């Protein structure tokens, strides 16, 4: 068992892997130093080092309100999508009704329908309902987009759960509601939580629908960035992007840690 022929293949594979990683995350990481630039235009490599753009980010009302709006919409979306998505997943995995596969396709359709199509449709409808440029409107839209993530995640949990546990609960005297509350829900909670995290993140950096549904008075962070890149091009965008990146990374890491510690048999 000499490794003479294996070594070159191994080295080649490692090199390929490293290259892929750089290709995937390189563009995201390039943005980080650009936010610390001492110069006044967005450029790479950055000139000097300063925190002035971070300072602008936390003081300029356009950015701060964008942060707050984005956060509020993302949290509201995560909550709404988790509730609706969990209910939908229950129906789709446990229920028996006609046209179930059609219902499934409809619920998951936001994953495949082009975002711009959804955006235009919602825009026309929400204008009539007068809920463009509001937390309610954008939350509704983002919830529709985020429900599939929760459905997929919770369905997986439900399918991997032992059905005998629910039968045991019923046998021991728990009605369907209490069975769900005391047995099913605690056991699928990791799936619900993971779905909620994805829902939060999908709303947090959603830009296409947000461009249509926000107004000058109500902007989310990604739409502010889009505006700024088109008009100003100062490194604040890079600073904000770095914060977005950090948020996403932290939330996902947190989700992974929680998932690992969840009591799964």
């Amino acid at each position, binding site marked *: 068992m000499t490794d003479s022929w294996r070594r070159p293949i191994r080295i080649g594979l490692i090199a390929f892997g490293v290259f892929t990683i750089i290709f995937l995350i390189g563009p995201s990481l390039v943005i980080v130093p650009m936010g610390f630039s001492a110069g006044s235009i967005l450029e790479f490599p950055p000139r000097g080092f300063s925190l002035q753009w971070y300072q602008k980010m936390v003081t300029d009302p356009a950015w701060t309100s964008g942060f707050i709006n984005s956060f509020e919409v993302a949290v509201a979306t995560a909550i709404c999508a988790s509730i609706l998505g969990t209910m939908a997943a229950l129906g789709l995995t446990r229920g028996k009704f006609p046209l179930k596969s059609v219902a499934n396709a409809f619920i998951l359709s936001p994953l495949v329908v082009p975002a711009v199509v959804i955006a235009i449709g919602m825009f026309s409808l929400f204008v009539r309902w007068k809920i463009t440029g509001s937390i309610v409107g954008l939350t509704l839209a983002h919830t529709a987009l985020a429900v599939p993530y929760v459905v997929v995640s919770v369905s997986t949990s439900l399918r991997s759960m*032992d059905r005998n*546990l629910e*039968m045991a609960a019923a*046998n*021991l*005297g728990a009605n369907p509601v209490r069975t769900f509350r005391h047995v099913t829900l605690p*056991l699928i909670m990791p799936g619900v939580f993971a779905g909620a995290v994805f829902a939060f993140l999908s709303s947090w950096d959603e830009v296409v629908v947000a461009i249509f549904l926000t107004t000058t008075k109500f902007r989310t962070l990604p739409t502010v960035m889009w505006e700024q890149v088109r008009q100003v091009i100062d490194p604040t965008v890079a600073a904000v992007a770095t914060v977005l990146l950090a948020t996403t990374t932290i939330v996902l890491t947190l989700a992974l840690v929680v998932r690992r510690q969840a009591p799964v048999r």
Partner: protein
Amino acid sequence: MTGQTSGRTASGKSGGKPALVLRGLEKMFGDVAAVAGVDLEVPEGEFLTLLGPSGSGKTTTLRMIAGFTVQSAGTIEIDGVDVTKVPPHKRDVGMVFQNYALFPHMTAAENIAFPLQMRKLGKTETRQKTADALKLVKLEAYGPRYPRQMSGGQQQRIALARAVVFQPRLLLMDEPLGALDKKLREALQLEIMHISRQLGATVIYVTHDQEEALVMSDRIAIFHDGKIEQLGSGEDLYERPSSLFVADFIGESNILHGTLDGGAVRSDLGTWRIGDAPAARAALAAKSAAAVVVRPERLRIIAATGDVPAGVNSVPAKVTDVLYLGSTRKYELKLANGQGASVRHQLGGGEQEWRQGDDVRLAWDVESGVLVAGRGV
């Protein structure tokens, strides 16, 4: 054990109404009848086993009693109350699952307390009853443990404690020992028997292990093709099987096929008289296919020549193998038509020993042969 067994059954019967009555119970899955008309009465305090090969309908029957599966036809009565349309959570029966089905996010004590909480018992009472149940299964110290921190045998004992802690009207067990190794299984068989006896519980136990059924049960219902083929004590089933299927399924048997002719079964191999089995004989038309069933320990080997004693049937055979099994010696033989047969002899009786290749005759007392309907009936 026999004495105790009959005592329990008798006291149950004197108590009045049976604990469980099934009438014409059926379950169709599409066009297939998983359960095709089961009638059963179980007196209070009885340990009844549903025994049969997989797909014979025993588990489906159990699930219908628990309410997990809705019957296609028939009724279920528990303690004289028709529960046919009652949802599972209101049936008040305990169930032990093969894979334990303990709630993984709750400790052993929380699992046991669950049915009590669902019944809204007070905190003190719940704690007391949980402690009693843990003591009953000899796992007092395991209350704070999670299921994954316990062995399979311990988990199943917790599951048993959880199933009896609320004093259900019936205790259902679905192959509860199927996932455990042989030694543990035997130990738990005894424990389950003791606990159910101690509680005076009526138990419906499903298994495909005939030894387990014989050891544990007051009565056994043999399932075959969605029906109860025969219902009786282990001894009934072993000594007086009512069909070829039961004779074949329970224990080893030698089955001699032929045609019924008056008080005898005739075939090319010989004519064998049958004992007093008026019921079996009445059910069979004259000249119909019939078979004589003889258990290996009821057969004797005698010399190929010489007189056959009165009241004894015989059939010529050749010894093909002699197996020494410790307390018994087993002879494998071949009949003239190629059919195999086996004989089991208790050692130490000073019987004659036979060797491979000997031409002999198999003999049995007329009374130890059981008449059943033959193939194709």
